[in-house]
């Protein structure tokens, strides 16, 4: 599963394997171009996620972060542009290479936590005899073993996200795409989950693309942070976070952390203003009708 794609080698040479994800000149819009309701979600976006790195996408609400993530995972098709996974173009979900973690819990409420993970493995095509072992191992990795037989409605939001992460890990893909996975959680739970994620990722060597609103989360977790502009969504700047994983809690209190966070804040501030003003303008015209 791991290295079938490197030999295809559509870009780069044999010493440099292709990036895990390559988005090239992605354009995405909704509605009829030129009409009043047309929205350009992404304009000429090109970005790579290198193998084993954690890339964060950050930007104002509605800047197309999630759209870009869905395109990267083959859940949405761009209007134009090209997407390559390990150097091979894709045109649909790639469950062998890519797992998703969503903001909203996608755990099936009619199944227990354990069954939820096993059904994911069934979708993936894992033989029945292996499913239980892999599911239990994934639950252990996220510390949810005692809750294996609980239903999603019986566990907290933080635990649901752990369970979802366990489901993604159990699929053993090289790439995990996370769409604001901790977005619906309180600050303290986010912090703990973020630290745990950093530890897990340091061991797993997976390629992660992580969409977030939180500057702290971005700096704490990412190897690189891509700042996106408000509509049309474009990559404004990419900031390197040069700090080894797993990151310690005292990284957050270091001057380096603050500096990076402040830089992101400055970069984002104007974009957020623009986004809010545009939203207000939209509500105004709606009000006049």
């Amino acid at each position: 599963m791991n290295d079938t794609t490197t030999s295809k080698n559509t870009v780069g040479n044999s010493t440099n394997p292709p990036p895990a994800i390559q988005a090239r000149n992605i354009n995405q819009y909704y509605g009829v171009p030129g009409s009043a309701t047309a929205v350009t979600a992404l304009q000429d976006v090109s970005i790579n996620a290198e193998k084993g790195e954690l890339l964060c996408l950050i930007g104002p609400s509605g800047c197309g972060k999630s759209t870009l993530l869905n395109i990267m995972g083959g859940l949405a098709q761009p209007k134009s542009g090209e997407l390559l996974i390990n150097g091979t173009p894709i045109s649909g979900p790639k469950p062998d290479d890519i797992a998703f973690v969503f903001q909203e819990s996608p755990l099936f409420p009619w199944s227990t936590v354990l069954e939820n993970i096993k059904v994911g493995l069934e979708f993936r095509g894992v033989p029945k005899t292996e499913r239980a072992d892999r599911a239990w191992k994934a639950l252990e990795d996220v510390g949810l073993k005692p809750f294996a037989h609980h239903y999603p409605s019986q566990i907290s939001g933080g635990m649901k996200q752990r369970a979802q992460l366990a489901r993604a890990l159990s699929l053993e893909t090289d790439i995990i795409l996370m769409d604001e996975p901790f977005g619906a959680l309180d600050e303290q739970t986010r912090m703990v989950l973020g630290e745990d994620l950093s530890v897990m990722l340091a061991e797993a060597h997976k390629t992660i693309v992580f969409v977030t609103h939180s500057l702290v989360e971005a700096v704490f977790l990412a190897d690189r942070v891509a700042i996106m502009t408000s509509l049309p969504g474009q990559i404004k700047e990419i900031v390197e976070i040069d700090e080894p994983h797993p990151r310690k809690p005292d990284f957050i209190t270091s001057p380096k952390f603050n500096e990076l966070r402040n830089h992101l804040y400055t970069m984002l501030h104007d974009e957020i203003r623009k986004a809010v003003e545009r939203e207000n303008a939209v509500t105004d015209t709606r009000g006049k009708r």
Partner: protein
Amino acid sequence: MTSPLKIRLFQTAFFGSILALWFGVTETGYVSPIFLPKLTVVAKKFFILVKSGEWISPLSITLYEVACAYSLAIVTGIFVGFLVSRTRFATRVFEPLFSSLFAIPLIIFYPLAMLFFGLGVGSKIALGAVVAFFPIVLNTISGFGTVAPIYQRAAQSMGASGFMLVRRVLLPGAFPVILTGLRIGFIVCFLSIIGGETLGSLDGLGHQIVFNAESMNTSGMFAWIIFIVLIALGLNIAVQRLEKRGEHYK
């Protein structure tokens, strides 16, 4: 204050006072036994009926009709409902159509059913199946329509095939709503079949009531009524038990 015990107590008292009123007005001769027979006589007739085994044949006829009609309604209702729910266009065409048909008292078509299928079990099965079809198809459409898109997206991202998507995501997701349709469908199926039997039939529980009424055997008729009420209660409890099983699905 509203302990389950207290609620049960009041329900029993309510039921008991109706029986007491019945007992009172008939024993004193206040109401003619032609209209309302004595409670004691009805009770005696009921026990004779139960003991004699006379009920076995009509009950099995009625249950056979209900079983046939209900299974027909389930299969067609869920199948048609699933197909309709697949596109927004079909949903918008058929959902209002089925809703308005469901609002029509379908018993008005019963004479037509008798014309087509005769006085035997056929006409009752047709009536019961048509009546039960509507709540089942309507709930199936709304059930499949309300499965959260995130579950489907997640399943697709994990590589679920079309068949797995239906079996593992759409069916269980729609199940609680479909179950409600199945319960309503069962009730209207049973009601309309008993109703059909009283309108024109050769056998069955409803037939016994009309037969006794027409022979001026009011106490016999009441014995049958009590029998049917008990059967209906039993079936309703069974259906509720089944619905409870689906609670985790929500």
